[in-house]
């Protein structure tokens, strides 16, 4: 099979304007992936499927990744003017100080497609797409029209991560019920506080059970239970 660099080059020739970025996998599997821009995603997908050399006719898996907002602390050297009294005379002196700056790297939601070729017996080619952010710009083009197998898995990602797939024929929740509001696979998902009965709790669950008991009142005497 072609290497990721060759596939990237092939995509850029076939679909002018398409943004393709190679994401390296440093692990021993060295399964590098291609991050594509969402503007030309459908054209890129169609090319990957139709190209006689690649012939990626089988979509094996679609999954999601949540990248939460990240606070990065950096040490920066700053030069600034400081007024100092040297030998009884006030002078403007330049001083270099090390400063810690914090910046917020905005998070995003990512969708990952694993493609194989049944005809050529090769694969996988890993495609990734990112949303602009995690709150309001969560739209991505659906690849269901290229690979029909994506239909249910895109619904699952819509359900659990909240990515909205444009052009999906039937975008509804698939695992949770329709009235459900959260996206449970997101990193900031808060699960319902139902830790009222944890007979063998430890670690994280024990802390949550304690928090529940504190919130419910110092002495929670259940109906029919002994205080």
């Amino acid at each position, binding site marked *: 099979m072609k290497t990721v660099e060759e596939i990237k080059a092939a995509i850029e020739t076939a679909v002018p304007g398409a943004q393709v970025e190679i994401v390296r996998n440093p692990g021993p599997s060295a399964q590098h992936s291609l991050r594509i821009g969402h503007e030309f995603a459908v054209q890129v997908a169609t090319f990957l499927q139709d190209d006689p050399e690649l012939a990626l006719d089988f979509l094996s898996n679609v999954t999601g990744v949540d990248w939460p907002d990240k606070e990065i602390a950096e040490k920066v050297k700053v030069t600034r003017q400081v007024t100092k009294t040297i030998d009884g005379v006030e002078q403007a002196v330049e001083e270099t100080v090390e400063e810690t700056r914090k910046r917020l790297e905005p998070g995003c939601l990512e969708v990952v497609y694993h493609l194989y070729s049944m005809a050529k017996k090769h694969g996988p080619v890993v495609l990734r797409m990112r949303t602009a952010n995690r709150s309001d710009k969560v739209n991505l083009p659906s690849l269901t029209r290229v690979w029909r197998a994506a239909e249910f898995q895109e619904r699952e990602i819509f359900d659990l991560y909240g990515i909205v797939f444009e052009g999906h024929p039937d975008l509804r929740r698939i695992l*949770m*019920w329709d009235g459900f*509001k*959260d996206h449970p696979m997101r990193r900031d998902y808060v699960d319902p506080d139902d830790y009222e*009965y944890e*007979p063998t709790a430890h670690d994280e669950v024990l802390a949550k059970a304690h928090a529940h008991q504190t919130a419910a009142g110092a002495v*929670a005497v*259940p*109906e029919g239970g002994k*205080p």
Partner: protein
Amino acid sequence: MAVDEGLKIELGKQGVFVTSLQELYNWGRRSSVWPMQFGLACCAIEMIATTMARYDMARFGAEIFRPSPRQADMMIISGTVTKKMAPQVVRLYNQMAEPKYVIAMGACAISGGPFKQGYNVLKGIDRYIPVDVHIPGCPPRPEALLQALITLQKKIDGQPLTGEGRPRFLDAEAQGEFPVPEQGEHDLEPPSNPAVWPVPLTINK
């Protein structure tokens, strides 16, 4: 009213069969506990195995799995009850005719099992409907399900027809229908039925 055991055996030797109405009635009830035909997860495979020739649940009169709740006497909660499925399970239980019994089969049905801390699994079906027999195991072997059935039969046998401890269907006051939980925005509402499941007291140190 119980008949003296020694007298009963003595009379039996003389060719006289003595019993009480309660004994006869409960013998009939416990010998034909028809389960409802539905499985929720992998425990259902063990339940199916229990009905097959090797374990043969028919020996205990519980082989006729009914596809309709109207004709079933017992519900075997065989597997994981997800929060999406829980209202349907309670609704099916409500549709069963009295007398009705429940066996919660396996770790998931009794407590949520390995999925207990998950966002989509109910922490035990006994939060919404009364369970008569709990079987631990993941999944329980067919012998365990047979043991549960025998336990249930003993329970039926021991139920008096009048007075304290009589089964629900002989008590005009008793509630036979249980509220079906709603699927809310974040969780099932209510998260449990306190009339069925008062929160047990736990001491977490």
